């Protein structure tokens, strides 16, 4: 078990290095970052002087070596746009990102799993149909539209909730609902189909034949056996949420990682882009590892093979 985890962690390092290399190449090949930071009415020769000073005139290989050399020591360089430590800027956004992502994920699971299970158990009932409509709507509604509508209703009209920013629990409500609306719809649909599939299995019939209470049959036999695909999707969603929910963060002025990363990409502020890619890829691979370990806990057969 320990060997497995260690080898997976080594893979994580490899994934991180490869993603940094790929992103370094893409960002650097997409154009000259220096002009974007300079004032518009500046002389061409001053721009060149800046380029020289920042090392952008060196061969790409030299720049790559310099970057990787720094990155190993946790130094991603100085943000071109903000003139402060790139990794610091990224880490500063992490608490807000974790808070929003965690809340949204919790809300998603709390909403979606019961919804999916009840829909599956009462298949073709009015509840099931209503749930189907709700989940389709949830997936089809664009987050920016839902966000703006919520703001107009709950902030401008009812004045119950602030339009954006952080600080109190009230600030967290709308952004996490917008995120959860989309993610919960996917999980609920998947839960419904996974549970439906399992409900037809012989061991469920056996459990019922033993005279187990229906709630026990569902919770212990049906749900646990249909958990693998749900956990897989939830893991993917968690990765997406932690990587930052750009649109939701933008609409609700949430100081998260996604907004910072996308802005940095648009501005070719590549020290920040790379620091963000580093953090996001580390989190993503760790979540994947957690999901894989969960498989083993949920399904002993997976453990044996590992």
């Amino acid at each position, binding site marked *: 078990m320990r060997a497995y985890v260690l080898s997976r962690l080594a893979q994580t390092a490899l994934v991180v290095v490869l993603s940094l290399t790929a992103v370094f190449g893409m960002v650097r090949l997409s*154009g000259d970052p220096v*002009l*974007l*930071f*300079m*004032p*518009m*009415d*500046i*002389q*061409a020769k*001053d*721009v060149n002087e*800046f380029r020289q*000073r*920042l090392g952008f005139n060196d061969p790409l290989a030299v720049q790559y070596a310099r970057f990787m050399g720094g990155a190993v020591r946790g130094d991603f360089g100085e943000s071109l*746009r*903000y*003139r*402060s430590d790139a990794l610091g*800027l990224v880490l*500063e*956004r992490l608490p807000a990102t974790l808070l929003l992502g965690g809340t949204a994920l919790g809300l998603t699971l709390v909403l979606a799993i019961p919804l999916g299970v009840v829909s599956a158990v009462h298949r073709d009932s009015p509840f099931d149909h209503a749930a189907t*409509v709700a989940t389709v*709507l949830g997936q089809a*509604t664009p987050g*920016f*539209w*839902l*966000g*703006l*509508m919520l*703001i*107009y*209703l709950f*902030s*401008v*009209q009812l*004045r119950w909730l*602030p*339009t*954006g*920013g*952080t600080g109190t629990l009230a600030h967290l409500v709308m952004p996490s609902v917008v995120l959860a609306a989309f993610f919960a719809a996917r999980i609920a649909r998947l839960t419904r189909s996974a549970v439906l599939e399992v409900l037809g299995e012989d061991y469920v019939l056996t459990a019922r034949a033993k005279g187990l209470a229906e709630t026990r049959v569902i919770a212990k036999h049906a749900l646990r056996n249909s958990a693998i695909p749900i956990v897989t999707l939830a893991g993917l969603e968690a990765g997406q949420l932690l990587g930052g929910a750009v649109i939701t963060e*933008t*609409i*609700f*002025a949430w*100081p*998260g990682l996604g*907004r*910072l990363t996308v802005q940095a990409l648009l501005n070719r502020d590549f020290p920040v882009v790379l620091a963000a890619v580093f953090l996001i890829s580390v989190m993503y691979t760790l979540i994947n590892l957690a999901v894989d370990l969960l498989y083993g806990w949920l399904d002993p057969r997976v453990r044996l093979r590992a």
Partner: protein
Amino acid sequence: MRGLRCLLVVPLLLALAGAPSAAAQDRVKTREIVVGLGAEPRTMLAVTIVDWTTNTQLEHIYDRLLDRDARTLKPKPMLATAWRVVNDTTWEFTLRPGVRFHNGEPFNAQSVKATIDYIKDPASKSHYAAYWRKVKEVQIVNDSTVRLVTDGPWPSLIDRASLTDALMLPPKALKELGPEKLNQKPIGTGPFRFVEWKRDERLVLERNPDYWQGPADASRVTFRFIPEFSARMAALLSGEIDIMKDVPPHALEPVERSGRAKIRSAVSSRINYLALVNLKPGPMQDLRVRRAMNHAVNVDELIALVLKGRATRICGPLSPANVDFAPVECYQHDPARAQALFKEAGLDPAKLQLTLDTPSGRDKIKNRNTGDMFFLGWGPSVFGQGVMEPLFQASQTYSSYGNNKAIDEKIARTITVVDARGRAQAYAELHQMVRDEAPWVPLWQQHDLYGVASHVEWAPRADEKVWMYDARIIAR
């Protein structure tokens, strides 16, 4: 379904919106003002990064050497009380006595020298180094007198000194704490002191009770960063913010009707133009074609119909808000004349194909990768050199027009005329020359539209200085 209903209900509710919000009323009591901006500052260190959003916030903390008159945009005293031209390459500034930085350090000739030295030091990597390149030396005459010596005649020095290009840094703190620390906790002489900067969220400032012009009316100014304009509008309408810039024309009515905010507008010094690119082969290299374009575009109609009158036409590259402006004649809308000019140039206007670029970024312009024409907004544009030098010479990054020897020479001469009358004359001639060459279809000065909460009194300015020292909180 739920979504659909919202879509119908929201405009109705908007129409019924009434009473001021509790939060806004609290702010009237505590005398706080919240300004909603689309982005956060890029640094807290003055004279480092050229960026409107950054500087509009920084100049609450730091003062300029000179200010600009809100109406004429001409330089006027601020930290310097007077200035004079000693000779063609020496400017002397008399500094205001008794001004102190927020840390108690006195403002004096040493501060001016330290600030300009900081800008010019390559280690500072300041964007402003290029702007101040011509300053060779800062001489301290005495505590309250300082001389700037340039390596050639440079009349625009006075224009740079009356912008955020000359926000004054505290020399002692700069030396002892270093730029890094000052970036975390900025120190200036301005009307507000730094309290807190929460990245991507807000910048909080408090009133400086010892400000040399007297304390501000607002006890606290908070800048909130709300990237989405609809969310910014919602924040204004719900009373979370008091001032927002750039209300889109279609949203003016809901703001006025809300009863919580009003619209204030200013004719901006920012100019918008249609560049007729002569720097690459094509029909735009022919003066007749460029003139034909000027006769073909009906600018007045565009303003009336598309912009609903919220723009003011310009006829040349300098707007009346520019201190070096001199009137030039507009090209009249005259389709027949345009047709004739096209034919004269050997082009059949019925078959002529031109590409108009509306670049969303500026990359295409910088890479000289646009079509025959492109749109660009430029500004705040308050002095001549800042337009003529970067936009009409082939060697410049953003120019669309150039390689005209007469204009190149005229620009080189004009930007060195120090004497005020000579300068006015030179710019008037240059303006006329450029107008005749028709390098653009000059379009308009946009009208900046601000949403201002009903309990705040504040008037916007043509140079886009959003300065809360000027704001008053009025009880309702």
